[in-house]
């Protein structure tokens, strides 16, 4: 490639940037102005900045009160467990949506999005915990070449490189201290934004690679990039020691920075839970902002240009769309949000390591987007929530300590989704959406309601004593339904209406029982599958019942009910319609027109 071509390429990008200069300056001001305000030494910093509450503690009192209340009624579960899970869902949602932003909209399928997430995780963590500075040159670890002279040469070479890197770090630190203030340890939000921006700039470089390769080749290149990155991190450590290799960095991060210093006295003992709440709010705010921004872009004319590139690159270019610019823009934007998610995830885990580049991260978000629906930012969010809750709340508890559950569970769900709703949950047909909702409600009602009534506990008792399961359950159903019946009868008695004829209440009651039994009869198929086959199979044949707790059992039950309930809710109306047409003609449809 000669000089002229390179110049022209940059000219292309520069043209587009220049014609948007007002927007760019505006956005930059919007992003950076708050940080300027809170730079140490700035006059405005203390009283005016809202962000300050994130920085130096001082949690908003109403929020902690709310948290207190929520905790008391058990809203967040033990140790704010649920809060943590939702925070994780939000992080995954940002990540999945960022993939959709690139691959769903522009069609540049990336199989290695984890590179942006890992890259930003490192940068974020680094920025937040400070650049490691120290001029003490550690004596190098013995280098295993075996030949003394070579070892010495290599040793002094690495010594020189080390010194050079140290020098660069010192200079960088001085510059950063000059810009930001006394210490380069930045609060989480600032670290996050710096990490995301660095990731975006990094992605511009990858975007230039992406211009050269297309389709499956691009997929292959992006698949390999994170693997290379993680290897580089490992090799760096081997060569330069833990100081610059940073394979794992962990340390005080979220807690110290976001935590309120002056807790109300009654909450003093629960500082860590309050931190969970703070972190949750932090993630929530970033989630809303980033999804809002992504939707803003995706639904704007820029998003339309992205989509035109996805549909037909040549046609788009012939119509004046600057394909190179938009591709790079998509890469940068996507990497920015992936970087936000990566930074948040490293804050969530409180460490960063080479495992951040694992391809299971990349695959997870692709599956999330496919399940939620590609090409609509909301699809990624939906998919992330469904899969994360499935994994964290259910699978992990049901199958204690079983490895790589995530990809297995995701994979099965992916196949089912692709078979029955190829465009994802967000674009499923109305019947399918209804069936999903009804199926989940159905599962909730069957699993949650009987908990206190003796059903669940009896089943557990039968499982734990490994008695023949079926008979026990059936007798339970019978006894409970009789109990319910008699209790209702008793209520009628209690009202003192002892009459020979039937009262209105009796008729209503009888009708409702008829209804309940009719539907119960149909639902017993589901019941049979879920309760007897499902639990018997899982509990006794798989031999997992030993390690199950009460809650795990409920969760397993719930999953089975969902799995059986959704098809049930989908096919029941259809079957009912068939039966109806056969025996009653069109009568019960009350004049609605129903083709097919």
């Amino acid at each position: 490639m000669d000089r002229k071509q390179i110049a022209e390429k940059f000219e292309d990008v520069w043209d587009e940037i220049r014609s948007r200069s007002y927007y760019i300056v505006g956005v930059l001001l919007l992003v950076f102005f708050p940080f300027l305000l809170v730079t140490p030494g700035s006059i405005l910093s203390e009283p005016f900045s809202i962000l300050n509450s994130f920085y130096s503690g001082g949690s908003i009192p109403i929020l902690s009160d709310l948290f207190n209340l929520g905790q008391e009624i058990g809203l967040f579960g033990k140790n704010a467990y649920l809060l943590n899970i939702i925070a994780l869902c939000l992080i995954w949602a940002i990540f999945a949506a960022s993939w959709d932003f690139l691959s769903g909209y522009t069609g540049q399928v990336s199989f290695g999005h984890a590179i942006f997430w890992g890259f930003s995780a490192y940068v974020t963590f680094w920025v937040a915990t400070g650049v490691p500075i120290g001029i003490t040159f550690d004596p190098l670890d013995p280098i295993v070449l075996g030949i003394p002279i070579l070892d010495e040469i290599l040793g002094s070479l690495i010594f020189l490189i080390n010194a050079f890197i140290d020098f660069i770090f010192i200079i960088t630190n001085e510059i950063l201290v000059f810009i930001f203030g006394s210490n380069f340890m930045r609060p989480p939000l600032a670290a996050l934004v710096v990490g995301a921006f660095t990731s975006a700039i990094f992605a511009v470089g990858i975007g230039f690679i992406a211009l050269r390769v297309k389709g499956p080749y691009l997929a292959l290149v992006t698949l390999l990039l994170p693997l290379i990155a993680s290897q580089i991190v490992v090799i760096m450590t081997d060569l330069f020691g833990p100081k610059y290799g940073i394979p794992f960095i962990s340390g005080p991060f979220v807690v110290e920075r976001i935590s309120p210093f002056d807790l109300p006295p009654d909450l003093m003992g629960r500082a860590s839970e309050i931190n969970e709440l703070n972190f949750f709010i932090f993630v929530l705010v970033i989630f809303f902002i980033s999804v809002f921004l992504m939707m803003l872009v995706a639904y704007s004319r820029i998003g339309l240009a992205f989509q035109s590139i996805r549909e037909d690159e040549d046609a788009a270019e012939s119509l004046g769309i600057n394909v190179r610019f938009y591709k790079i823009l998509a890469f940068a934007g996507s990497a920015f949000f992936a970087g936000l998610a990566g930074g948040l995830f490293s804050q969530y885990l409180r460490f960063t390591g080479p495992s951040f580049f694992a391809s299971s991260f990349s695959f997870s978000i692709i599956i999330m987007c496919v399940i939620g629906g590609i090409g609509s930012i909301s699809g990624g969010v939906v998919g992330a929530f469904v899969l994360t809750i499935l994994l964290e709340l259910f699978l992990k508890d049901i199958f204690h300590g079983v490895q790589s559950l995530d990809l297995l569970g995701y994979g099965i769900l992916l196949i089912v989704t692709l078979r029955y709703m190829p465009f994802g949950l967000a674009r499923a047909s109305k019947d399918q959406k209804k069936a999903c909702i009804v199926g989940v409600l159905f599962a909730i009602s069957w699993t949650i309601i009987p908990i206190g009534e003796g059903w669940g506990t009896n089943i557990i008792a039968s499982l734990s004593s490994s008695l023949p399961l079926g008979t026990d359950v059936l007798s339970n159903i019978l006894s409970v339904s009789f109990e319910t019946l008699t209790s209702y009868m008793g209520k009628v008695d209690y009202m003192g209406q002892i009459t020979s004829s039937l009262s209105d209440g009796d008729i209503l009651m009888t009708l409702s029982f008829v209804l309940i039994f009719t539907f119960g009869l149909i639902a017993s198929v589901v019941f049979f599958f879920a309760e007897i086959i499902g639990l018997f199979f899982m509990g006794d044949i798989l031999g997992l019942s030993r390690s199950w707790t009460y809650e795990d059992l409920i969760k397993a039950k719930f999953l089975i009910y969902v799995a059986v309930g959704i098809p049930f809710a989908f096919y029941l109306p259809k079957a009912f319609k068939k039966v109806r047409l056969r025996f009653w003609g069109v009568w019960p449809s009350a004049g609605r027109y129903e083709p097919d």
Partner: protein
Amino acid sequence: MTIDTISESTQTSKHVILKVSSLSKHFKGLKAVNNVNLSVKSGELIGIIGPNGAGKTTFFNLISGFLKPEKGSKIMFNGDNIVGKRPHKLAKLGIARTFQLVRPFKFLNALENTTVPHIPKNTYVSSSVLKNKATWSLIEVDLAEKKNYPAFILPHGDLKRLDFARSLAVQPQLLLLDEPFSGLSHEEAFRVERLIRESNNKGMTIIIVEHKLKILMRLVQRVFVLHEGRLIGEGSPQEISNNQEVISAYLGSEAKEYV
């Protein structure tokens, strides 16, 4: 509005809008376009004919920037050499094209399809204005009532007109149409023909590659004939149908019927 201004500038002065000299393109030894020289005046309606594989589509690809010609080739557009410029740049300069096979943005609806070409020139225009412009582009080709249909459900005739509307929306000075009548019924072809005439009357320079000679010959003012990459004939439709070389290479014995 802009079309009017174009017509003003072009009708007053019939300058040479496109001048191609010693244009060649080789595919690994195959000379798809071989030393072609021609020039087109502003406001002309030109036809290019030739057997399959003659290099007509390649010629379009070269002019619209999708392919890079061999060294020594020159393509002058409004007096500037445009060799090596990327297609989107050329679209901004005023060259639009359609493709031989329809290439709509399948999963976008008709309105979004015509919005895309309006995007590059309207960075600071509000989205409602942008939408209006796109709707006007659809109205021009009688597709306004189907504006919410995704392109993949539209029939072939509509897609041809949609392609045409998209390239008109670029507001080009030079429009390259690659087989605009292929696969169209008599009625649909007539509609497209009318659209081409209208655009040309507004002053747009149009070059058409077409195999349906009956329509082409009554539409265009001048014809170029390509054969195995070379330009073998040039002139009015009458002249071409009497040209012995063209008859033997392409037209055959029924040459007279087309005029």
